[in-house]
């Protein structure tokens, strides 16, 4: 097993507000890690730290065995941000154009090759939106948009998918189909890190859970998380736990 992400004693603050405190955890190759915690618990910040979008105040982060600030193989990570999901902008970009962006890290300054275009077409087919390739992303439904972003990650040959609440605003049926797709990709060996507010979804899918509320309350396999009190501790008595069963 190889460590994809390795955090050691990571602390990060926005000004005086501590967002993430002394978190150590390792994501192994092939893991499906569910990252859970109450609103404002630092989930997104932790994910950003893992991807090198923030620099930690203390501690060290390694991505694919290299210090995160030296990591330069952007094609290995597919990232779907919270913002991308809810983006209501009217920028006219087609699904194909969006997915093609996944090849940019590989093509560098050069022109896209036939192999790049083939990878794009494959990725679009894999997520099942072949008939939507020439549609504008802004016209798609929430679930279709998600698939387009996943296709972009696949086109880049990512071996790590990082998803920040990907199904906000997506109807239940599309959401189940979307998670089935994530399962398939995970079975094919892609490591998945998923932030999700619906604990039920996470415990159904993920093999590892990290539960945080600034500090790490639990990190381990899903069974031990379900049996532990980590959830109640992290959410406290005032926190509201979203827990649906499907």
């Amino acid at each position, binding site marked *: 097993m190889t460590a994809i992400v390795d955090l050691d004693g990571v602390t990060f603050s926005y000004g005086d507000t501590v967002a993430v405190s002394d978190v150590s955890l390792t994501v192994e190759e092939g893991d499906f890690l569910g990252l859970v915690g109450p609103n404002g618990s630092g989930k997104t910040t932790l994910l950003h730290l893992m991807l090198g*979008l923030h620099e930690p105040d203390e501690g060290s982060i390694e991505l694919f065995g290299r210090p995160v600030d030296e990591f330069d193989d952007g094609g290995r990570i597919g990232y*779907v941000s919270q913002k991308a999901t809810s983006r209501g902008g009217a*920028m006219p970009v087609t699904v194909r*154009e969006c997915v093609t962006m996944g090849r940019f890290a590989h*093509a560098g300054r050069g022109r896209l090759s036939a192999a790049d275009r083939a990878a794009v077409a494959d990725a679009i087919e894999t997520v099942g939106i072949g008939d939507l390739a020439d549609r504008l992303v802004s016209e798609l439904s929430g679930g279709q948009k998600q698939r387009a972003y996943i296709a972009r990650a696949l086109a880049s040959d990512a071996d790590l998918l990082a998803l920040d609440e990907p199904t906000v605003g997506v109807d239940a049926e599309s959401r189940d189909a979307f998670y089935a797709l994530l399962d398939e990709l995970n079975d094919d060996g892609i490591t998945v890190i998923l932030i999700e507010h619906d604990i039920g979804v996470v415990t159904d899918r993920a093999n590892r859970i990290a539960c945080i509320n600034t500090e790490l309350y639990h990190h381990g396999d899903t069974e031990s998380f379900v049996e532990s009190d980590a959830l109640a501790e992290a959410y406290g008595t005032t926190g509201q736990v979203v827990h649906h069963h499907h």
Partner: protein
Amino acid sequence: MSGETPANADDRSRPDRGLRRTAELAGVGITALVAAWMLGFVLLYWAQDLPVAGDLYAAFRSFGRGMDVALGTNVFRHPIMWQSMAVGVLVGVVAPLVGSFLVHREMALIGETLAHTAFAGVAIGILVTSSTGWNGSLLLVALVVGILGALVVQWLTERTEAYGDVPIAIMLSGSFAVGTLIISYGDGLTGVNIQGYLFGNLAVVTPEGARLMGALSLIVVAGVALAYKQLLFITFDEQAARVAQLNVTGYNTLLVVLTAIVVVGAMQVLGVILVAAMLVVPVAAASQIARSFRETMYLAVIFGQLSVIGGFAVSIGLGLPSGGSIVVTAIAIYLASIVGSGFSVKAISAHG
């Protein structure tokens, strides 16, 4: 998925897609030819004392006189009009090109800010040239100040949440205020036509200004062509572009510097106050009806060109300022595109 899925709503628009694409490519091709023709004029005017170029320039002049006779005008025989038209045509290409990224990054205000910074540059240029007797170009000084302003804007935006518009707004009015102070201080030192820089005037364009615009246009077109992929990715999804290890800060800086370059070039015919319109309005019109980002850029350039040529026709025909004529024409095209897209006004600047 329930209710109305947008998935199969407009398959009926497919058959004429080939025709539409051909028409767009033809429009872009014609625009490129016109721009090349104008660049040719600027170069010939420069080289008119050289043997072969001199003959070609003479041929150009007689072509212009022929146009005047044919159209019953008194325009095309004058080299200065050709220079103004050359600047206009080039602005019509490069402003929508850069604007396509600017508008969709919600940075439209930055074009306006850089125009006002460049105005301070013109003011400084007037002061420097008149007090030192240095015979440099006002536009060159404006260009340097504009690019410095672009770097400051970039620095400010990197340090504020998203594109916080308060520091930008302060910079916009602040640099304009400084410009007016400098001009007032240097009042009477020169006979420079400040109104021309404010509102745009065909007569402001000098041969030197036209040459500068030619060179700047080549830089902008090359810059956008080389960085198209990266600019597109960053504009569409900045965080994902960062994760993909693109140099986001570097490309953002490139974009604001290219904007400053366009603004300084365009200031001659559009004027400081109206210059941002050419960055924004053709792109807004194109975004109403485009079916892809590439198509947005093609249409924006075509609409930009139509605005410039239509605006020149109004300006020359009715003796009105060029800047206002061009912008009003561009807005007419924008309104037409709203009608053409079935009255669905797209909120391009949807923050969040």
